[in-house]
């Protein structure tokens, strides 16, 4: 991308296998960073490597990354942590729950049951600091983003969109359907690991209660 980064694409789809390849290459490059590398930004299926073009030539860096991706088959992945996230579903906590249920033609309880029965993979952290993009949401819960994004989504909101689910770590604009809220702190810049969740971690949602409407 431009004169100072390489976008390394490791697949075309959202899949745990492709995402694990991204994770392995990221760890490989973190352990032995090629000279001139300033930033490594993982995505679902790609790794953006930002470098200083005056200290490293594009061709040289491409070669180093190609070597790393050959070796990466050998590198193991760290143990993923499993985090249970308590969620208050519906009501003011999840203003879109009823609408989502209506759109899917299932009761709100069933939306909650489906959302809590899967263990999700954290594919990437992005959008705002600490925001986990997680998947894959059961097909029966796939809904589009809201046609008009909200200008303010409260901190802790749990949202779904298409086959993904996420949690808003801070108040921000957002277009996902908000079905619940959690009190957990996803991001704290003073912690050694500022983001509670990292790529590759696993998340299970647990219903605290459904607020009566």
């Amino acid at each position, binding site marked *: *991308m*431009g*004169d*100072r*980064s390489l*976008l390394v694409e490791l697949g075309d*789809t*959202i899949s745990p296998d492709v995402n694990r390849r991204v994770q392995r290459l*990221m760890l490989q490059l973190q352990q032995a960073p090629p000279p001139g590398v*300033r*930033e*490594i*930004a*993982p*995505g*679902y*299926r*790609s*790794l*953006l490597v*930002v470098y200083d*073009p*005056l200290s490293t030539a*594009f061709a040289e860096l491409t070669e180093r990354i190609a070597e790393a991706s050959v070796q990466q088959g050998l590198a193991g992945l760290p143990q993923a942590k499993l985090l249970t996230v308590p969620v208050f579903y519906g009501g003011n906590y999840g203003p879109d729950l009823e609408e989502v249920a209506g759109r899917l033609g299932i009761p709100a309880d069933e939306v909650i049951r489906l959302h809590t029965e899967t263990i999700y993979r954290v594919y*990437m*952290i*992005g*959008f*705002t*600091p*600490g*925001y986990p*993009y997680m998947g894959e949401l059961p097909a029966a819960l796939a809904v589009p983003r809201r046609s008009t994004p909200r200008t303010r989504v409260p901190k802790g909101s749990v949202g779904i969109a298409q086959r993904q689910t996420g949690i808003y*770590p*801070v108040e*921000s604009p957002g277009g996902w359907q908000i079905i619940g809220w959690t009190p957990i702190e996803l*991001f704290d*810049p*003073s912690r050694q*690991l*500022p*983001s509670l969740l*990292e*790529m590759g971690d696993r998340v299970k949602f647990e219903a605290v209660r459904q607020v009566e409407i």
Partner: protein
Amino acid sequence: MAGVNTFEVLSPGIMSTVQDLGRFGCARFGVAASGALDGFAVRVGNLLVGNDENAAVVETTLMGLRVKVLRDAVVAVTGGDLQARKGSEPLAMWRSHLVGEGETIVFSGPASGFRAYLAVAGGIQAAVVMGSRSTNLSSGFGGFEGRPLRKGDILAVEPVQDAVRFAGRGFTPAAVPAYASPWCLRVIWGPQDDHFSEAGKQTFVSAAFTVSPDSDRTGIRLKGPVVARRPALEESIISEGILSGAIQVPGDGQPIIILGETASGGYRKIATVISADLPLLGQITPGDEVAFEAVSMDEAVQALREMENRIDTFKRGLK
């Protein structure tokens, strides 16, 4: 070491923040680079007052910042010409000056450019969070209490011995960037230029776009003819890492030049602004006209080398 209270914010103007050159290495936590949008101006400003190039400065937008000097200090104003004054007299830009206790520095409004930088000998004091003193606006950390400056804020400066020796320095006049609309930004195609139709790409490099008023530190939003993508492609792509200068084209075909507050994105990027032109992005003002010129990687690296040479030459002259 304890900082020295040096400025009191009498008015923050439209938007003023504490920034250094940015926060790198934290994208995997979703943390964007933030940082001064005109990095060239910050590096020169810091060198003028004897600082490390990456020291923290105040970035102010358009107009209205007024600070009272609480203690003698050596300052330099660089970047866009927002007509800085010391009391009632103009404060020459791209030069270092001694300002005295009780004096007021005012940014009255733009003669050219959009953002000015106030550098001070010692550097604005701010905690280093995740490797940087820059303000992260989305999560509210770094800089001054993680937020834009407000009336009444007191800015401390890192103590520095005998700062007065840095007063009276001037940057090479011929090397001062010209900030003027219409802008011609040099870009390198990609990474998703192949998702656009030939006509769309042609539009991108031949049209004049107008900068929309809803531009901010997250991006410069452009209005103009539709930059068409290939038929049968969805509006968005699978989210991936992004960096400043990347030019996203959402479903409506209106380009957005990404600035420093975004770590990932889900729209196609037709092209990316070259490193040498990134500092200009901080000076593009709503209402300006922007055009794009595609260049090769070699041309881009050459342009960057020339920019670095201008700074190196200046640095050597200071010793």
